[in-house]
């Protein structure tokens, strides 16, 4: 499968439809609670499939090395992103740190789209990468908070103390982590036979549900971009385009050093290149309420997400096949 066939896949085309509809100010919308249900369905489906795959493979040193590298990537990428933003964009320290946190964490929908692209290309990947995705959700938030708080007197007022409990709950028990890891464990316990009974719900309709969700993501991305691009300026928007390439390159380096196969390498690159728009924005509103959500949401959802869906995924798969194939 080449880049053109990825671009012309229904998943990408539905995303483009939503994006252009929103840019052209179409009143079309997908109800928020329905979209949230679709997101949970997709996470359950890939968690279950990942768990079934994991039940068939042994956890060896290479797998643990990938987990270790993923954790370090999630901790480390915000520092790279923060430095790039502070040097090039003129964003405030808090906005740069909050945005950087998004780029260390991951986009689960980009990950799902990449798994589908790999499946269509006939490139196998390992189920444990779903757990790697869940592991990469959180460390970036800690790095972002450290970047924002360093040099500042610790804020120990009642409000901050209270928010730490809320933040811990949001960071450790957000929907992505609970559903992904929960479904992964259930899939591993249920195995192939157990999943077979669920396949009419989780296997056959998966592509259609993903198309529906991508339509909504396109609408969200288009509306965010339409509202935010004037406020952002050229340098932050450029950051939203080059940062995924930096992340993917660092992810590729880690994957090559560990020696993983092309499918797993492509997914590690996708995880390193993607930016969160579910777990991290919620954490940032709790921990750094003075940061401007229109900066990081526009960048992660309006710039980086479409870039990764349209250009990034086929590019990362091609590069991974080239260097690891």
């Amino acid at each position, binding site marked *: 499968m080449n880049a053109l066939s990825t671009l012309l896949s229904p998943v990408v085309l539905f995303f483009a439809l939503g994006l252009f509809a929103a840019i052209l100010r179409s009143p079309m919308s997908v109800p*928020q609670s329905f979209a949230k249900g679709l997101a949970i369905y997709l996470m359950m489906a890939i968690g279950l499939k990942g768990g079934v795959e994991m039940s068939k493979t042994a956890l060896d040193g290479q797998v643990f090395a990938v987990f270790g590298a993923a954790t370090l990537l999630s901790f480390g990428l915000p520092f790279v992103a923060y430095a790039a933003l502070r040097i090039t964009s003129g964003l405030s320290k808090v906005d740069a740190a909050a945005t950087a946190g998004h780029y260390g964490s991951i986009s689960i929908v980009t990950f799902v789209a990449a798994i589908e692209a790999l499946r269509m290309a006939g490139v196998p990947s390992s189920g444990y990468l779903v757990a790697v995705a869940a592991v990469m959700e959180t460390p970036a938030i800690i790095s972002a908070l450290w970047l924002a708080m360093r040099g500042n007197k610790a804020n120990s007022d009642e409000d901050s103390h209270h928010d730490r409990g809320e933040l811990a709950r949001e960071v450790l028990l957000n929907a992505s982590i609970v559903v992904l890891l929960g479904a992964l464990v259930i899939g591993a316990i249920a195995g192939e036979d157990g999943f077979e009974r669920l396949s009419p719900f989780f296997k056959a309709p998966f592509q259609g549900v993903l198309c529906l969700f991508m339509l909504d993501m396109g609408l969200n991305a288009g509306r965010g971009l339409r*509202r935010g691009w004037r406020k952002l300026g050229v340098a932050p928007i450029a950051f939203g385009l080059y940062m995924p390439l930096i992340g993917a390159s660092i992810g590729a380096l880690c994957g090559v050093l560990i020696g993983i196969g092309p499918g797993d390498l492509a997914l590690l690159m996708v995880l390193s290149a993607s930016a969160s728009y*579910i777990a991290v924005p*919620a954490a940032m509103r*709790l921990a750094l309420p*003075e940061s401007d*959500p229109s900066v990081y949401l526009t960048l992660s959802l309006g710039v980086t997400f479409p870039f990764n869906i349209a250009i990034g995924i086929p590019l990362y798969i091609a590069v991974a096949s080239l260097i690891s194939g």
Partner: protein
Amino acid sequence: MTEDHKKLRLELIIESPALRRAEDVLLDCGVTGWTVIPAMAGFGGKTRWSRGTDISESTDMVVVICIGDAEVLEPALERLHKMLDRRIGVLNVSEVRVLRPGLF
């Protein structure tokens, strides 16, 4: 003719992630009831916003409406005002007449 019972009405528009914190302040101050309603859309800080455009729901706004006696609501007002130092939100208070004072 209904009897005139004057109370304070506190209205707080705040981001949904901070709702729990605001509710805890009201509870701490002895407020016995309030209502939370979703805010659909608005404009502020040179930005137009509307509900349902962010899948994380982190930028959705909610409105907390609370009616009570001044001696209960004034301390809550002070603490909520302090809370808004670092957050997006609007806080206002007005005097209202209520018809069933036993509820507040």
